[in-house]
Protein backbone atom coordinates (compact mmCIF):
# COMPACT_ATOMS: atom_id res chain seq x y z
CA UNK A 1 0.00 0.00 0.00
CA UNK A 2 1.59 3.27 -1.03
CA UNK A 3 1.00 6.72 0.38
CA UNK A 4 2.16 10.19 -0.50
CA UNK A 5 3.34 12.80 1.96
CA UNK A 6 1.15 15.87 1.69
CA UNK A 7 4.09 18.26 2.39
CA UNK A 8 7.07 16.91 0.43
CA UNK A 9 4.93 14.96 -2.12
CA UNK A 10 7.26 11.92 -1.90
CA UNK A 11 6.05 8.32 -1.93
CA UNK A 12 5.99 6.78 1.50
CA UNK A 13 5.73 3.13 2.60
CA UNK A 14 3.79 2.98 5.83
CA UNK A 15 5.81 1.00 8.37
CA UNK A 16 4.19 -0.67 11.36
CA UNK A 17 6.52 0.58 14.12
CA UNK A 18 7.31 4.07 12.97
CA UNK A 19 3.71 5.24 13.23
CA UNK A 20 2.05 7.52 10.71
CA UNK A 21 4.93 9.79 9.74
CA UNK A 22 6.88 10.71 6.62
CA UNK A 23 10.47 9.39 7.01
CA UNK A 24 11.87 12.24 4.86
CA UNK A 25 10.32 15.35 6.37
CA UNK A 26 8.51 14.11 9.49
CA UNK A 27 5.13 15.34 8.32
CA UNK A 28 2.24 13.44 9.81
CA UNK A 29 -0.32 13.90 7.03
CA UNK A 30 -0.17 11.14 4.43
CA UNK A 31 -2.45 10.81 1.42
CA UNK A 32 -3.48 7.46 0.05
CA UNK A 33 -2.75 7.10 -3.66
CA UNK A 34 -5.40 6.07 -6.16
CA UNK A 35 -4.97 2.45 -7.27
CA UNK A 36 -3.42 2.20 -10.75
CA UNK A 37 -6.07 -0.28 -11.93
CA UNK A 38 -9.01 0.64 -14.13
CA UNK A 39 -12.09 1.13 -12.00
CA UNK A 40 -15.42 0.05 -13.40
CA UNK A 41 -18.50 1.89 -12.15
CA UNK A 42 -22.09 0.86 -12.74
CA UNK A 43 -24.24 3.90 -13.44
CA UNK A 44 -27.55 2.90 -11.93
Amino acid at each position, binding site marked *: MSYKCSRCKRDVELDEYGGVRCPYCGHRVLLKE*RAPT*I*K*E*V*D*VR
Partner: protein
Amino acid sequence: MASDFEVEFIERDDRNARFVVRGLTPAFANGIRRAMIADVPTMSIDTVRFVENSSVMFDEMIGLRLGLVPLTTPLDDYETGETATLALDVEGPATAYSGDLRSSDDLVQPADENIPIIELKEGQRLELEADAVLDRGREHAKHQGGVAVGYRHLQRVDVVGDAGEFDEQESNILRGVIETEDDELVLTDEFDNDLTERYPGKEVEVHDVPGAFVFHVETDGSVTAEELVLRAADSIGDRAAELEEKVAV
Protein backbone atom coordinates in the same frame (compact mmCIF):
# COMPACT_ATOMS: atom_id res chain seq x y z
CA MET B 1 -61.56 -1.34 -33.25
CA ALA B 2 -62.63 -0.20 -36.67
CA SER B 3 -62.77 3.57 -36.24
CA ASP B 4 -59.75 5.64 -37.22
CA PHE B 5 -58.15 8.35 -35.21
CA GLU B 6 -57.99 11.83 -36.59
CA VAL B 7 -54.65 13.53 -35.93
CA GLU B 8 -53.92 17.19 -36.51
CA PHE B 9 -50.58 18.83 -35.78
CA ILE B 10 -50.46 22.32 -34.31
CA GLU B 11 -46.76 22.65 -33.59
CA ARG B 12 -44.06 20.37 -34.82
CA ASP B 13 -40.28 20.46 -34.90
CA ASP B 14 -37.46 18.09 -34.04
CA ARG B 15 -37.86 18.04 -30.28
CA ASN B 16 -41.31 19.49 -29.78
CA ALA B 17 -44.74 18.56 -31.00
CA ARG B 18 -48.30 19.50 -30.14
CA PHE B 19 -51.16 17.70 -31.81
CA VAL B 20 -54.87 16.99 -31.43
CA VAL B 21 -56.15 13.42 -31.59
CA ARG B 22 -59.88 12.77 -31.97
CA GLY B 23 -61.70 9.54 -31.30
CA LEU B 24 -59.66 8.48 -28.27
CA THR B 25 -60.87 7.17 -24.95
CA PRO B 26 -59.19 8.71 -21.90
CA ALA B 27 -57.67 5.32 -21.08
CA PHE B 28 -56.07 5.05 -24.50
CA ALA B 29 -54.77 8.60 -24.37
CA ASN B 30 -53.08 7.78 -21.08
CA GLY B 31 -51.77 4.55 -22.57
CA ILE B 32 -49.99 6.50 -25.29
CA ARG B 33 -48.57 8.94 -22.77
CA ARG B 34 -47.22 6.12 -20.62
CA ALA B 35 -45.79 4.31 -23.64
CA MET B 36 -43.93 7.46 -24.68
CA ILE B 37 -42.36 7.76 -21.25
CA ALA B 38 -41.65 4.17 -20.30
CA ASP B 39 -41.71 2.01 -23.43
CA VAL B 40 -39.68 3.79 -26.10
CA PRO B 41 -36.04 2.75 -25.53
CA THR B 42 -33.12 5.16 -25.79
CA MET B 43 -29.33 4.82 -25.53
CA SER B 44 -27.73 5.88 -22.28
CA ILE B 45 -24.35 5.34 -20.67
CA ASP B 46 -24.59 2.45 -18.24
CA THR B 47 -21.07 1.31 -17.33
CA VAL B 48 -18.02 3.55 -17.03
CA ARG B 49 -14.40 2.37 -16.79
CA PHE B 50 -12.18 5.05 -15.27
CA VAL B 51 -8.57 4.95 -16.42
CA GLU B 52 -7.64 8.19 -14.72
CA ASN B 53 -9.65 10.65 -12.70
CA SER B 54 -7.76 13.29 -10.77
CA SER B 55 -10.67 15.76 -10.86
CA VAL B 56 -12.43 17.10 -7.77
CA MET B 57 -15.41 14.77 -8.23
CA PHE B 58 -15.66 11.10 -7.38
CA ASP B 59 -15.86 8.49 -10.15
CA GLU B 60 -19.46 7.69 -9.21
CA MET B 61 -20.54 11.33 -9.45
CA ILE B 62 -19.02 11.69 -12.91
CA GLY B 63 -20.55 8.39 -13.96
CA LEU B 64 -23.97 9.59 -12.86
CA ARG B 65 -23.60 12.80 -14.87
CA LEU B 66 -22.53 10.86 -17.95
CA GLY B 67 -25.56 8.59 -17.61
CA LEU B 68 -27.88 11.59 -17.89
CA VAL B 69 -26.34 12.88 -21.13
CA PRO B 70 -28.85 12.18 -23.93
CA LEU B 71 -27.43 10.12 -26.81
CA THR B 72 -28.91 10.00 -30.29
CA THR B 73 -30.53 6.61 -30.77
CA PRO B 74 -30.80 4.77 -34.10
CA LEU B 75 -33.73 2.56 -33.07
CA ASP B 76 -33.60 0.50 -36.26
CA ASP B 77 -29.99 -0.57 -35.71
CA TYR B 78 -30.08 -1.59 -32.05
CA GLU B 79 -31.99 -4.13 -30.03
CA THR B 80 -32.73 -3.63 -26.35
CA GLY B 81 -29.60 -4.53 -24.37
CA GLU B 82 -27.10 -3.89 -27.17
CA THR B 83 -24.21 -1.57 -26.44
CA ALA B 84 -22.02 1.07 -28.06
CA THR B 85 -18.74 2.32 -26.63
CA LEU B 86 -17.78 5.92 -25.98
CA ALA B 87 -14.52 7.39 -24.73
CA LEU B 88 -13.51 10.65 -23.11
CA ASP B 89 -10.01 12.02 -22.55
CA VAL B 90 -9.56 15.60 -21.34
CA GLU B 91 -6.59 17.16 -19.60
CA GLY B 92 -6.80 20.33 -17.51
CA PRO B 93 -6.94 23.26 -17.44
CA ALA B 94 -10.13 22.76 -19.43
CA THR B 95 -13.73 21.76 -18.99
CA ALA B 96 -14.84 18.32 -20.15
CA TYR B 97 -18.04 18.67 -22.18
CA SER B 98 -20.45 16.04 -23.39
CA GLY B 99 -19.27 16.97 -26.90
CA ASP B 100 -15.79 15.62 -26.02
CA LEU B 101 -17.20 12.09 -25.90
CA ARG B 102 -15.92 10.05 -28.84
CA SER B 103 -18.22 7.29 -30.00
CA SER B 104 -17.53 3.98 -31.71
CA ASP B 105 -20.74 4.41 -33.71
CA ASP B 106 -21.38 7.61 -35.67
CA LEU B 107 -25.13 7.24 -35.11
CA VAL B 108 -24.74 7.22 -31.33
CA GLN B 109 -23.55 10.69 -30.42
CA PRO B 110 -24.29 13.11 -27.58
CA ALA B 111 -27.48 14.96 -28.57
CA ASP B 112 -26.29 18.11 -26.79
CA GLU B 113 -22.63 19.05 -27.03
CA ASN B 114 -22.37 21.81 -24.43
CA ILE B 115 -23.22 19.99 -21.23
CA PRO B 116 -20.35 20.54 -18.78
CA ILE B 117 -19.30 17.23 -17.19
CA ILE B 118 -16.49 18.48 -14.93
CA GLU B 119 -14.21 21.47 -14.79
CA LEU B 120 -10.54 20.39 -14.68
CA LYS B 121 -7.78 22.49 -13.13
CA GLU B 122 -4.06 22.51 -13.98
CA GLY B 123 -2.64 18.96 -13.84
CA GLN B 124 -6.01 17.23 -13.50
CA ARG B 125 -7.03 14.66 -16.02
CA LEU B 126 -10.09 12.60 -16.85
CA GLU B 127 -9.81 9.54 -19.03
CA LEU B 128 -12.57 6.99 -19.30
CA GLU B 129 -14.34 4.51 -21.47
CA ALA B 130 -18.10 4.07 -21.27
CA ASP B 131 -20.65 1.57 -22.53
CA ALA B 132 -24.00 2.95 -23.65
CA VAL B 133 -26.86 0.49 -23.60
CA LEU B 134 -30.30 0.59 -25.21
CA ASP B 135 -33.04 0.22 -22.61
CA ARG B 136 -36.47 1.46 -21.68
CA GLY B 137 -37.65 4.23 -19.36
CA ARG B 138 -39.23 1.73 -17.00
CA GLU B 139 -35.76 0.36 -16.18
CA HIS B 140 -34.21 3.74 -15.38
CA ALA B 141 -35.32 7.34 -15.84
CA LYS B 142 -32.17 8.10 -17.86
CA HIS B 143 -33.58 5.93 -20.66
CA GLN B 144 -36.71 8.05 -21.01
CA GLY B 145 -36.91 9.64 -24.43
CA GLY B 146 -39.91 11.82 -23.63
CA VAL B 147 -39.64 14.80 -21.32
CA ALA B 148 -42.77 16.46 -19.89
CA VAL B 149 -45.13 14.40 -22.03
CA GLY B 150 -48.76 15.13 -21.31
CA TYR B 151 -52.22 15.74 -22.67
CA ARG B 152 -55.27 17.89 -22.00
CA HIS B 153 -58.83 17.85 -23.15
CA LEU B 154 -59.50 19.94 -26.21
CA GLN B 155 -61.72 22.82 -25.12
CA ARG B 156 -64.33 24.45 -27.26
CA VAL B 157 -65.07 28.13 -26.73
CA ASP B 158 -68.52 29.40 -27.70
CA VAL B 159 -69.58 33.02 -27.62
CA VAL B 160 -73.00 33.08 -25.95
CA GLY B 161 -73.62 36.82 -25.74
CA ASP B 162 -72.27 40.22 -24.75
CA ALA B 163 -70.92 40.94 -21.33
CA GLY B 164 -72.78 43.64 -19.43
CA GLU B 165 -71.64 47.05 -20.64
CA PHE B 166 -70.28 48.25 -17.31
CA ASP B 167 -69.19 44.86 -15.98
CA GLU B 168 -65.64 44.59 -14.80
CA GLN B 169 -64.10 41.91 -17.04
CA GLU B 170 -62.15 39.39 -15.05
CA SER B 171 -59.40 37.56 -16.87
CA ASN B 172 -60.40 34.08 -17.97
CA ILE B 173 -57.23 32.02 -18.06
CA LEU B 174 -57.02 28.90 -20.19
CA ARG B 175 -54.01 26.84 -21.21
CA GLY B 176 -53.38 24.53 -24.11
CA VAL B 177 -55.38 24.61 -27.31
CA ILE B 178 -58.94 25.85 -27.91
CA GLU B 179 -61.38 25.12 -30.68
CA THR B 180 -63.29 28.18 -31.82
CA GLU B 181 -66.82 28.34 -33.23
CA ASP B 182 -65.40 28.14 -36.77
CA ASP B 183 -63.71 24.81 -35.87
CA GLU B 184 -60.34 26.50 -35.87
CA LEU B 185 -57.62 25.27 -33.49
CA VAL B 186 -55.88 28.12 -31.70
CA LEU B 187 -52.94 27.92 -29.31
CA THR B 188 -53.71 29.82 -26.11
CA ASP B 189 -50.24 31.41 -26.22
CA GLU B 190 -51.47 33.48 -29.15
CA PHE B 191 -53.76 35.50 -26.90
CA ASP B 192 -51.66 35.39 -23.76
CA ASN B 193 -53.74 32.49 -22.31
CA ASP B 194 -56.55 34.95 -21.54
CA LEU B 195 -59.93 34.54 -23.23
CA THR B 196 -60.88 38.17 -22.53
CA GLU B 197 -57.98 39.17 -24.79
CA ARG B 198 -59.47 37.24 -27.68
CA TYR B 199 -63.14 37.95 -27.01
CA PRO B 200 -63.24 41.40 -25.37
CA GLY B 201 -66.71 42.37 -24.16
CA LYS B 202 -68.18 38.95 -24.91
CA GLU B 203 -69.53 36.29 -22.64
CA VAL B 204 -68.08 32.89 -23.48
CA GLU B 205 -68.72 29.32 -22.47
CA VAL B 206 -66.00 26.68 -22.37
CA HIS B 207 -66.73 22.97 -22.82
CA ASP B 208 -64.54 19.90 -23.11
CA VAL B 209 -64.78 18.24 -26.51
CA PRO B 210 -65.48 14.55 -25.84
CA GLY B 211 -62.86 12.14 -27.15
CA ALA B 212 -60.45 14.87 -28.29
CA PHE B 213 -57.05 15.24 -26.63
CA VAL B 214 -54.25 17.72 -27.12
CA PHE B 215 -50.88 16.04 -26.66
CA HIS B 216 -47.74 17.95 -25.89
CA VAL B 217 -44.57 15.98 -26.55
CA GLU B 218 -41.04 17.10 -25.84
CA THR B 219 -37.95 14.90 -26.22
CA ASP B 220 -34.44 15.15 -24.81
CA GLY B 221 -32.93 14.88 -28.31
CA SER B 222 -32.29 11.14 -28.34
CA VAL B 223 -35.19 10.56 -30.76
CA THR B 224 -37.33 13.04 -32.69
CA ALA B 225 -40.75 13.88 -31.31
CA GLU B 226 -42.39 12.27 -34.32
CA GLU B 227 -40.48 9.01 -33.92
CA LEU B 228 -41.27 8.96 -30.20
CA VAL B 229 -45.01 9.09 -30.86
CA LEU B 230 -44.88 6.50 -33.63
CA ARG B 231 -42.75 4.09 -31.60
CA ALA B 232 -45.08 4.50 -28.61
CA ALA B 233 -48.10 3.66 -30.76
CA ASP B 234 -46.22 0.66 -32.21
CA SER B 235 -45.34 -0.62 -28.76
CA ILE B 236 -49.02 -0.55 -27.73
CA GLY B 237 -49.91 -2.40 -30.92
CA ASP B 238 -47.21 -5.01 -30.32
CA ARG B 239 -48.37 -5.63 -26.79
CA ALA B 240 -51.99 -5.92 -27.83
CA ALA B 241 -50.97 -8.47 -30.47
CA GLU B 242 -48.95 -10.39 -27.91
CA LEU B 243 -51.90 -10.47 -25.53
CA GLU B 244 -54.22 -11.66 -28.26
CA GLU B 245 -51.84 -14.43 -29.21
CA LYS B 246 -51.39 -15.63 -25.63
CA VAL B 247 -55.07 -15.58 -24.82
CA ALA B 248 -55.98 -17.45 -28.02
CA VAL B 249 -54.11 -20.63 -27.04
